[in-house]
């Protein structure tokens, strides 16, 4: 038997666009911001706010995403001294955002059972479709995923992080990340094909 690739097998594992493009320009901006330059920090804010807000809104759709995005940047300013250029600033910022989201969820008492089997939640996702627009459908369907599946799906398929990176961010193991991703995709598949 001769193996042959199936559609997508050789293309979809490529990472999506990620906030990890390190540039000298940004390094300088970060250095200036670390020295207390509010204008440099504003430029960093304007460069990254949309992607941070997008991440926040998709990861925790049940909170005020504008307010939480503000919180991310305030925290970023407070923690800027801990950034050491070991990663791209965007990656550092996203990690900080994820930590803040997890903290917020824990404070709200909604983080329980994030990674436990919850097929009822997945069925719920698959059972509703409100608009033929794929993007709108996807947003709504993602919002209905169980927390754990949604977090991994957003980070992997939307943001382009790898499983080991996601495991580090969310405090789970790589196997859990993979299984949650598959659960999310299967649920969303059912939604989009109805």
């Amino acid at each position, binding site marked *: *038997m001769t*193996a042959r*690739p*199936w*559609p*997508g*097998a050789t293309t*979809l*594992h490529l990472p*999506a666009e990620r906030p990890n493009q390190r540039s000298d*320009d940004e390094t*300088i*901006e970060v*250095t*200036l911001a*670390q*020295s*207390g*330059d*509010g*204008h*440099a*920090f504003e*430029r960093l*804010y304007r460069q990254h*706010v*949309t*992607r941070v*807000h*997008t991440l926040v*809104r*998709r990861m925790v759709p049940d909170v005020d*995403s*504008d307010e939480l995005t*503000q919180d991310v*940047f*305030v925290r970023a*300013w*407070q*923690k*800027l*001294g*801990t950034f050491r250029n070991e990663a791209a600033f965007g990656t550092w910022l996203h990690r900080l955002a994820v930590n803040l989201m997890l903290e917020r969820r824990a404070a709200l008492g909604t983080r329980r059972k994030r990674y436990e089997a919850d097929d009822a939640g997945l069925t719920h996702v698959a059972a509703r479709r409100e608009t033929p627009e*794929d*993007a709108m459908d*996807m*947003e709504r369907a993602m919002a209905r995923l169980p927390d754990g599946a949604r977090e991994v*799906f957003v980070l992997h*398929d*939307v943001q382009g992080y790898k*499983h080991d990176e996601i495991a580090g961010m969310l405090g789970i193991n790589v196997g859990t990340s*993979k299984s949650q*991703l*598959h659960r999310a*995709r*299967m649920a*969303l*598949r059912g939604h*989009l*094909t109805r």
Partner: protein
Amino acid sequence: MSIIDPWTERLSEYLDGELAHDERIALEAHLDGCAACRAVLDELHAVVATARRLPDLPPSRDLWPEVAERTRGVLPFSPRTRRLAPSWARLAAAAALFAAVGGGVTWFAMSRGPGASEVPVASADVPGSATPRNVSDRPRGTDAAVAELEQVLRRGESRLDTATVRIVTENLARIDSAIAQAQRALAADPGNAYVSRHLADTERRKIELLRTAARIVQSQS
């Protein structure tokens, strides 16, 4: 195919190119004979493709004014530096203040490349009648003032806590970096009035930082 088909559970890994070679060969053999699994794979492919096409979701309003308000008066230092004694905090604030703006704007002008004498975002700060200055146009005594203050600081360094010394050193390095960038930019584009003006501003800020540090050294005597 049933939902419990064991291969179904591996389709995401296959899609992501994460299966080992032997597993991939075996799964592809299974796909050859399983139309249902091929259909699921196509659907998963569609899910991932849709996810990658999702547009960004900007905030409903400009959040910067509120972020700026909430960070006003707070310096971006690590928890360690925020435990500084009052004089350190004062020095840190001075350093942050004096290191601000000039280097960043210089960077912006530099990033536009040689000949970029117009800086749209700050055009109001660059009068059209501004006289281009070269590095050689620096105010007389700049180097001497810097040297004198650095000497004062070196002599008094032993009286300062290591955290204070670190703050001063780090901020001076940042300012020096900004100065060096501006000098390089001016070397490439000597007529750039904007960079020239900010080079002078940054040098002035360096002197002000050194003066502040020197005052703190003297107050520790």
